[in-house]
């Protein structure tokens, strides 16, 4: 297929028309689904989403008012599949409700972080010069302060609601996507097809909107999944440190945090389900992100 004078390490082969006729998007999707881990991740995610959102419809439990009479029951007692916790909440049901929070807040925060970061980074990368320098120093400063510390300080001032949590985590996490997008924009800016737009009288806006952003989508999407994974972990950490959501709202991290005091009492159902749930969902997002990254990489090499 190639007629260039560069040396191939494998011989040039003619493009097979059936395979080649697909648009880049369809080929990419096929590539994604051939990655076993990515498929596994997707399956786990779907399962957990169903569990958290459809579950309560099939297994309704009381998750707002406490019931101290039925506290600390072992799994199986009085119809509680996974027992109850110190305040009498059914653990399985609580897991579902907590899942809704973890997943939703994580998704929202992750997406917010990605959006802010991508815009910041593409503008910095495309503009270059001192605009870039200033914007990136701000990012450097933001990265220098560990997010958890900032979060804790803010939480010490005011205990956050769910939407505030999304906002705060988003504001703390946009820095890494900004860096990545900037690097992409820098490299794309010198591509010939972008130069051609400027050279023949096109505007900067056109170059950015029509050429740079569509070609960074790969990085952005990959990064978004990792951001969501990190956001879910971050919420868990905050809750563990006792600065998370106010009860009766809960997430998996808070459940785990409460369960830790049960380490010595052997009440495994207060610890493991929540912990494993967190691991599963974060893993799922990481697998998906990895699969997406491979998918975009291969296309880039073509």
């Amino acid at each position, binding site marked *: 297929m190639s007629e260039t004078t560069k040396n191939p390490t494998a011989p040039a082969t003619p493009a097979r028309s059936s395979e080649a006729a697909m648009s880049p998007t369809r080929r990419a999707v096929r590539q994604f689904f051939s990655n076993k*881990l990515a498929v596994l991740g997707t399956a786990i995610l779907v399962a957990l989403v169903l569990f958290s959102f459809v579950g309560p419809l099939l297994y309704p439990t009381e998750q707002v008012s406490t019931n101290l009479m039925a506290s600390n029951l072992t799994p199986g007692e009085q119809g509680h599949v996974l027992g109850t916790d110190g305040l009498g909440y059914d653990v399985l049901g609580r897991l579902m409700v907590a899942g809704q929070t973890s997943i939703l807040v994580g998704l929202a925060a992750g997406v917010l972080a990605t959006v802010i970061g991508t815009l910041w980074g593409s503008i910095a990368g495309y503009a270059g010069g001192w605009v870039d320098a200033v914007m990136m120093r701000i990012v450097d400063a933001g*990265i220098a302060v*560990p997010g*958890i510390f900032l979060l804790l300080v803010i939480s010490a001032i005011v205990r956050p609601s769910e939407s505030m949590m999304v906002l705060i985590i988003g504001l703390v996490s946009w820095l890494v996507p900004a860096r990545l997008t900037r690097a992409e924009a820098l490299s794309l800016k010198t591509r010939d097809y972008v130069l051609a737009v400027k050279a023949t009288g096109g505007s900067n806006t056109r170059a950015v909107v029509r050429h740079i952003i569509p070609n960074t989508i790969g990085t952005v999407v990959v990064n978004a999944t990792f951001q969501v994974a990190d956001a879910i972990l971050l919420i868990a950490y905050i809750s563990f440190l006792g600065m998370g959501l106010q009860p009766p709202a809960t997430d998996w991290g808070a459940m785990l945090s409460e369960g830790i005091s049960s380490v010595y009492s052997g009440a495994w159902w207060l610890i493991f389900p929540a912990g494993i749930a967190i691991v599963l969902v974060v893993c799922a997002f990481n697998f998906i992100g990895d699969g997406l990254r491979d998918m975009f990489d291969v296309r880039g090499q073509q």
Partner: protein
Amino acid sequence: MTTTAVRDNSNIRLFGLFMIKRLVQAAVVIAIVSVIVFLLLQALPGGPARGILGQAATPAQIEAFNHEMGFDLPLIQQYFNYVSQWLTGNLGRSFVMNEDVSSLIAQRLPKTLILAIAAVGGALLVSIPLGMAQALRRNKPFDYIITGINFVVYSTPSFFLGLLLIMFFAQLLGILPASAPQGNTVGEILAQPKEMVLPALTSGLAGVATFSRYMRSSTIDNLHEDYVRTARAKGTAMKRVVARHVLRNSLTPVVTMLGYYLPVMFGGALVVEQLFNYPGMGLLFWNAAQTTDFPVLLGCILVISLATVIGSLLADITQFILDPRSRGGVK
């Protein structure tokens, strides 16, 4: 197409230029951090006075305090006062613990650093060979298994991981103690190695997952480079090529990443120290958050940011040493 070579500049001059540029950048970053911290201080409801005196203070007390501490001065002037205080090492005073913030931090910071060094050092020792081994056995079962394990470890919140480790090693096997070394001085801490294992392990495992992934992809990239082919064409056996050529070039991105890993590590320290009750900066910070002890909180943020910036600088310097290309001096 070729480029014309420029006469080789002396390394010293290059290093000098490099350091100046980086130091200026670092200074700017620290300045921005100081502004952030200052703004946070101002953003407290009721102003910094409320934060320091606590909820029970009366308006009159607050006003007097404000005047005494200069909180009613214009913002810019306050900022400069703060900066000059910070530059002389005065980070304020904790009214909750009745000690100078700087001395509190001076006590606690070394302990966190010890934990960090133990964790990161251990992580590097394991992940560098592991990552390389994975790269050399790419897409074989070994690679998949390790990748899978790395994913799971990376996805586990460190407190859960720590919990599991405690349950396994301390409760089940009973061979390691469940709480961290206690003591006031560094010496006392170092004298309790057994207690150090679980906290360091907890901190370090996540690092292993991250570093080995980086090492793996860096090694894979390098294995495809032309210079590897040249080395093979010379008759150098593959093992030697990896050890002599690939290793050093693959390390560079990992080392650079270390510098950026510091904030993650400090964040992790928060959690681990709380879990194991280890008297470091993280626990100090957490206690301060519980008691809304703002001078401590903000002093910690400042110091940690400083440490992070220095860490990045050190990482850049190491890259300068490891990768001659990054030194510049060529057209």
